[in-house]
């Protein structure tokens, strides 16, 4: 379980997160959604200790982020940020192999090699294992980074926009894999997702953020509603059903091409406040 209490964060003088209290349950695929600048990535980066804590407290499975060593935390959570450029010229299998670093610190054993093989297999990378990262597509490289995160073998996986660079088919496959990690292997995933329908189709728990605050959280059916989403994105949104899950539809507003951000409706403003 991840517990967040009184989390406030600023970049310079600009407030990014306002006094966030949140409890993230284990064994679920949790999606962070919200418009650009909502503070989703900052929240994830703070939990992932990629940014220093300014105020508040974060605990991951009982480990206080502020007082627990980074080596110990690496055995509790694996992080994939948006920075996936690698300066070294590595092969896919070598990159995935680094996921085992917290376990072997440079001296891999048979169990580590086995975990790497499983990760390559789980992300469909076995045929690409000997290819260099700069010889494969952006989407394949993204999968290789995800496989490295998976190979780390932690209970928690924290992913910042993992669907970047992935086409529709690979995005769907990836979300299905994440759901499988949670359902079949008991892992917990916290991921930032921009395309709400991937969260609608695969997430167990959704956190909606706007302007550095939690606007709504809970099961997809309770968060992905027309009033919440319309208020969240300042745009009229319809929610339908498909495969017994919410399906989010938004209007193209062809008649309002000159004004991409029209004034929110009274209903929207009421939900926001």
């Amino acid at each position, binding site marked *: 379980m991840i517990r967040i209490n009184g989390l406030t964060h600023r970049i310079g003088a600009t407030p990014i997160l306002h006094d966030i209290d949140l409890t993230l349950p284990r064994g679920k695929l949790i999606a962070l959604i919200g418009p650009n600048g909502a503070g989703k990535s900052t929240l994830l980066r703070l939990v992932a200790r*990629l940014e220093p804590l300014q105020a508040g407290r974060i605990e991951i499975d009982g480990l206080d982020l502020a007082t627990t060593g980074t*080596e110990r935390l690496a055995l509790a959570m*694996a*992080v994939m940020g*948006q920075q996936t*450029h*690698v300066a*070294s*010229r590595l092969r896919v299998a070598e990159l995935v192999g680094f996921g085992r670093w917290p376990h072997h610190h440079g001296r891999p054993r048979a169990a580590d090699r086995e975990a790497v093989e499983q990760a390559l297999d789980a992300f469909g990378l076995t045929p690409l294992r000997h290819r260099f990262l700069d010889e494969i597509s952006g989407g394949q490289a993204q999968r290789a980074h995800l496989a490295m995160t998976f190979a*780390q073998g932690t209970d928690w996986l924290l992913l910042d926009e993992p669907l970047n660079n992935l086409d529709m088919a690979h995005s769907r496959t990836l979300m299905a894999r994440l759901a499988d990690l949670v359902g079949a292997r008991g892992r917990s995933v916290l991921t930032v997702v921009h395309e709400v329908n991937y969260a609608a189709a695969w997430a167990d728990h959704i956190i909606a953020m706007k302007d550095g605050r939690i606007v709504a959280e809970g099961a997809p059916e309770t968060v992905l509603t027309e009033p919440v989403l319309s208020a969240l994105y300042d745009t009229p949104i319809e929610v339908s059903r498909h495969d017994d899950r919410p399906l989010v539809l938004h209007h193209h507003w062809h008649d309002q091409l000159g004004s991409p951000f029209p004034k929110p409706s009274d209903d929207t403003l009421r939900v926001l406040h």
Partner: protein
Amino acid sequence: MDRPAATLIAALLALLAASSLVWMFQGIGGGNRAFILQLRGTKLAGLVVVGAAVGIATVLFQTVAANRVLTPSIMGFDALYVLLQTGLVASLGVAGFAALPNAARFLASVAAMSLLAAMLFGTLVGRGAKDIPRTILTGVILGVLFRSLSTFLARIMDPNAFAVVQSVSFASFGSIDAALLPVAGGIAALCMAGAMWLAPRLDVVALGREAAVSLGLRFDRLVLVTLGLVGMLVSVSTALVGPVAFFGLLVAGLAHGLAPSARHAVLLPAAGLIGAVVLVAGQTLFERLMGQAATLSVVVEFAGGLFFLFLLLKGRVR
């Protein structure tokens, strides 16, 4: 180390041994052999130490900066060393400067240089991974600032002191400061051993800050330690032969190109050996076979500069 990597290291060792033998015994004649061999041996040791120090420092720096174009020299490390020396001459005077024991003065300079380098460049390199043009520009500006301050100090000091400063301000592979060799060689050897010890962690650093932190590495601390090592290695090479701008870039580029693996356990010794081979073979060629018709430092810098332009034009800045 796997077979291709071991083959590369063995080949480089063989090349270094061959070029060292030619350097030591070519045209030795029948004169005072002991004297000639001692003179040549000192110079050979200096060339090996400088070549290895520059090569390894550059690979280390490029790893923490996540950039294959940056070198400690381009970022103003050696200009900082020259400024420290100029400041010392300016404040103590020639007599005071000369009165300081060589080894003590050098050790103090190395310590100050490492501390300053880690402080000045630690933050910059951490941020630099995100904004390469700004990092290069800041490094170049810092280099210009250090050089300008050195020039300013040189202008207000007396001509004798200025002559002392001049002796540390220009690269010369032909006149290595033999007095500093034992202590400089010792420091370089310690730094290289430290770099090899860090090699597996540097492989993780090369994945970038986010991945390294996720894998449990104390990234910021490791960057500072690595920059401290870079500062010491640059101090060693600058103290022995003066500042060299593009030599490290050439050596690191060759190491990355020739090494069959991106592992630092291979890259670091490869870069050290390539640096030593280029200097020993180059100096043999220019000093013995071409009769000093050209200067190695100029040719090395010219080739390194062309390589820098090649990397920039190819867009291989990262």
